[in-house]
């Protein structure tokens, strides 16, 4: 397969205009198979893996992780090792519209697994160079010289056409537009390229997800004929997976048979499937790819747990006085409904300003600790699809009522998915509260670049022996502070939880 092929930024969805290269999963100088994940690409909406559209050999990585490229930009080249470097360079030059490498110039030494030769970012403007006319590869865009050049500013063109022309150094003044007022569209450019003897790029093909997912929802309510229901149960088909074509919208026998055919087609080995079917109890599993949100959680928390040395300091806090204060406020102020979590967040804000060494972020790259003046407290909110931590800013400067109203607003926004980036980014400390689930003790993983997180459990009525050996019943709430030992030592963590306890046990200080 002596062929040079392009790997480009794909277009995922109508609104995607550019993508950021997350990381390469296939190293230069290694082969890959169709469907293998080549790299991670993030659009403004999603982060996803770019699957190889064909079998190949990754000859060049042109895109740098962290850089952003327009849709269709060349990010890598696939070519068998047998193809000389000069040809690969010519291919890249043709794609990027760079001057063709002269034959006698020394070819850049491409060492496998070495960093890519400084690839020009695709936004770089070529110096009005003629594209290499020689040996255009099939499926590659070849811009005829007649169209080459830079466009004047006043040429009317659709945004896509303008971006395309800029990328491929096409002078739009040389393309006749068919839109209103002579506006040039992509199809006008394509026509002009073909008319002037150029060649259009082949449309990239992307492998569709092959595995069909099976529904796990209860299908008792799905309208179905008795035969269809029995057949579906016998064959392990969920009626939700059947298209209902029967009378009155019912799933009929043919629909179940169609579902069996389709679902089985997605199974790798029918023989195995048949064998499994003979087992009386089949434990059906469905493949759920991680959502972007889960991906982020997974990546961040894994990295946090692996890189920062966690240690925990736990304490029990007597909440009787705080609960009494809360009851008093709630009974007398109509505009406020203070929750236990509101009290904890306010107390944390106060403790953070009193012990500012805990109110920090750790910049791993520069080995710097950033200590903040205000306590911006992230509050963990659980959603059906994952976890998000909106930030309550400057907790130390705001009243309990303001904090309560703000948390309530942030939680609703989190559920309605209307949080803005500023509302969940940053934060100097996190509070995670599972008290409402009746959890009596747990610990949490630090939310980097923060250096500590407080896990708050439920208050429970317990017998407590005091200093005079008197036994009394108190509401006890356990908290666990997880700290990053690179930044926070044990004694500091202990001082922090002691301060927090003293604030919550003498809560009036939160009111001034």
């Amino acid at each position: 397969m002596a062929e040079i092929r392009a790997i480009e930024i794909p277009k995922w969805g109508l609104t995607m205009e550019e993508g950021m290269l997350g990381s390469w999963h296939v190293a230069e100088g290694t082969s890959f198979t169709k469907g293998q994940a080549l790299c991670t690409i993030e659009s403004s909406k999603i982060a996803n893996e770019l699957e190889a559209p064909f079998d190949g050999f990754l000859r060049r990585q042109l895109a740098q992780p962290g850089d952003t490229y327009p849709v269709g930009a060349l990010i890598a080249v696939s070519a068998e090792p047998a193809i000389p470097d000069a040809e690969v360079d010519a291919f890249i030059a043709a794609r990027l519209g760079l001057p063709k490498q002269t034959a006698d110039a020394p070819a850049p030494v491409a060492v496998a697994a070495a960093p890519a030769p400084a690839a020009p970012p695709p936004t770089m403007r070529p110096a009005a160079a003629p594209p290499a006319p020689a040996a255009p590869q099939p499926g590659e865009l070849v811009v005829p010289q007649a169209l080459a050049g830079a466009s004047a500013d006043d040429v009317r063109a659709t945004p896509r056409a303008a971006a395309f022309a800029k990328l491929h150094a096409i002078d739009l003044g040389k393309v006749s537009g068919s839109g209103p007022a002579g506006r040039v569209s992509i199809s006008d450019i394509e026509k002009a390229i073909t008319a002037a003897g150029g060649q259009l790029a082949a449309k990239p093909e992307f492998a569709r997800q092959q595995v069909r997912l099976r529904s796990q929802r209860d299908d008792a309510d799905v309208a179905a004929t008795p035969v269809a229901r029995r057949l579906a149960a016998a064959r392990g088909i969920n009626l939700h997976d059947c298209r209902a074509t029967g009378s009155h919208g019912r799933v009929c026998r043919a629909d179940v048979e169609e579902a069996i055919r389709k679902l089985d087609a997605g199974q790798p080995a029918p023989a195995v499937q048949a064998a499994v079917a003979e087992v009386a109890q089949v434990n059906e599993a469905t493949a759920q790819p991680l959502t972007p949100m889960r991906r982020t959680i997974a990546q961040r928390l894994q990295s946090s747990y692996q890189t920062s040395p966690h240690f925990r300091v736990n304490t029990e806090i007597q909440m009787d006085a705080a609960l009494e204060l809360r009851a008093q406020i709630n009974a007398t102020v109509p505009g406020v409904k203070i929750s236990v979590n509101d009290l904890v967040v306010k107390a944390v804000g106060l403790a953070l300003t009193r012990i500012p060494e805990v109110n920090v972020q750790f910049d791993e790259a520069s080995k710097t600790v950033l200590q903040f003046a205000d306590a911006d407290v992230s509050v963990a909110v659980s959603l059906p699809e994952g976890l998000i931590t909106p930030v309550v800013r400057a907790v130390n400067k705001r009243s309990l009522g303001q904090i309560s109203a703000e948390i309530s607003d942030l939680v609703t926004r989190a559920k309605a998915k209307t949080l803005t980036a500023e509302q969940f980014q940053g934060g100097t400390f996190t509070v995670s509260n599972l008290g409402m689930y009746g959890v009596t003790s747990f610990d949490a993983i630090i939310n980097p670049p923060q250096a500590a997180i407080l896990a708050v459990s439920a208050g429970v009525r317990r017998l407590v022996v005091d200093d005079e050996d008197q036994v009394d019943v108190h509401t006890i709430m356990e908290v666990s502070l997880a700290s990053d030992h690179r930044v926070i030592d044990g004694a500091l963590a202990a001082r922090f939880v002691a301060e927090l306890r003293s604030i919550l046990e003498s809560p009036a200080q939160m009111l001034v």
Partner: protein
Amino acid sequence: MTRTSVSSDAFDVVVIGAGPGGYVAAIRAAQYGLRTAIVERGELGGVCLNWGCIPTKALLHGADTAHAIADAGRYGFDVPAEVGFDMQQLVKFSRSVVSRLVSGVSALLTGNGVEVIRGSAVLSGKGELTVTADGQPIRELQADHIIVATGARPRVLPGITPDGDRIWTSTDALSPKKLPESLVIIGSGAIGIEFASLYGALGTEVTVLEALDRVLPAEDAAVSAAVVRQLRSRGIRCEAGVTVGTVTADSTGVSTTFTVAGGASETIRSEHLLVAAGVVPNTEGLGLAELGVGFERGFIAIDEWCRTGVVGLYAIGDVAGGPCLAHKASHEALICVDHIAGAPGVRQLDRWFVPRCTYSRPQIASIGRTEQQARALGRPIEVGVFDLAANGKALAQGEGIGFVKTIFDAESGELLGAHMVGPEVTELIEGFSIAHGLEATAESLAEIIFPHPSVSEAMHESVLAALGRAIHSMPTTAPTPSQTRTAQLV
């Protein structure tokens, strides 16, 4: 701290009342993915759908048919003098329209994942309410946000107690057992005038009694005058400045004693009496005052985002103040929920620009200020009037009666008010709503092409008249001192 279990009765949003405010709020909340329930003690759709806007429009369609039959001779039809009419059949049609729409609301709510809970709600604390059915508590709900959308009911006047038989509320007037011979209506707002027009067209002898100094007191004075002229020409008696004395009902009818300002006392006998003197909010039994909710003239006091001042408690629609109109309630529902959800760019309600429509014959539609209210602003204004007697389409459909009045701020060109009387003006007023919403000036409206022939051309001519350049009217010799430029053909 008590351990709270995470039960299925914890919601993000609970709405009390499933009228045009409540059900819209619930659907909007569910669209955001918020866990939402709606509590309704009566029928889904509220008064609007069941006992208001919709059934009256169905009955008025019958009245239009009666008018068409009565008028048919003008167009060459030979209609017998006595045309049979069955009131029960018309009521049946009206109810069938209602039941179709009610089932639509139910499907929309469940289709959006809103839990519909049947019963009466009482707020038991901040973010908490108890639902009772048949006097028994059936559910305890918790919600971060509770929206009160309990609406309003017809006002009862002292000494005139509706009995469902002789003395009617609007609800009774929607399903009479038979067409009454005669009807006295107390109140001449939109509801009173619609029923006057409806029963008048069907052949009932109608008398309208208004306490304030003119019929349709909320409308522009020119609107009142034009409509009264029309109603009187159809044999409907309209009296303003009326003081109602005693009302006595017996088995055969009602005797109403009243005085018109400066006149002698008079007693009229009618088969029924309809009280249409506005509405009062349904605020009782909800536990509102106990939580610290404030009130303004009986309505729940709210801020621009429909918040009551009690944490997590909101009020929308009639219960939160006028104008008591379904579309105002629906719009407040969107404002309230969008604000709760933190949607960007939510705009607060401009109460002046809630469109007001009366589906009488002739129809009435208006937005913004009356001419009198606009003058009270103390700013220079420009007023244009165009009469439908010069509108080809209105004449061609035999209804060249009515006018379009527009009022602009002379300085900014902003539309301050628009008032329309005539055929299908309730469908046309939205043109002025859009113009105001997009901040059109008189000049920019003048540039718009209106189709010919259409009644909407009168909207254009009215704007041109305000600019002093109406085409289809005789020129006025000189601008009047008040800068009113009328283009009325007299």
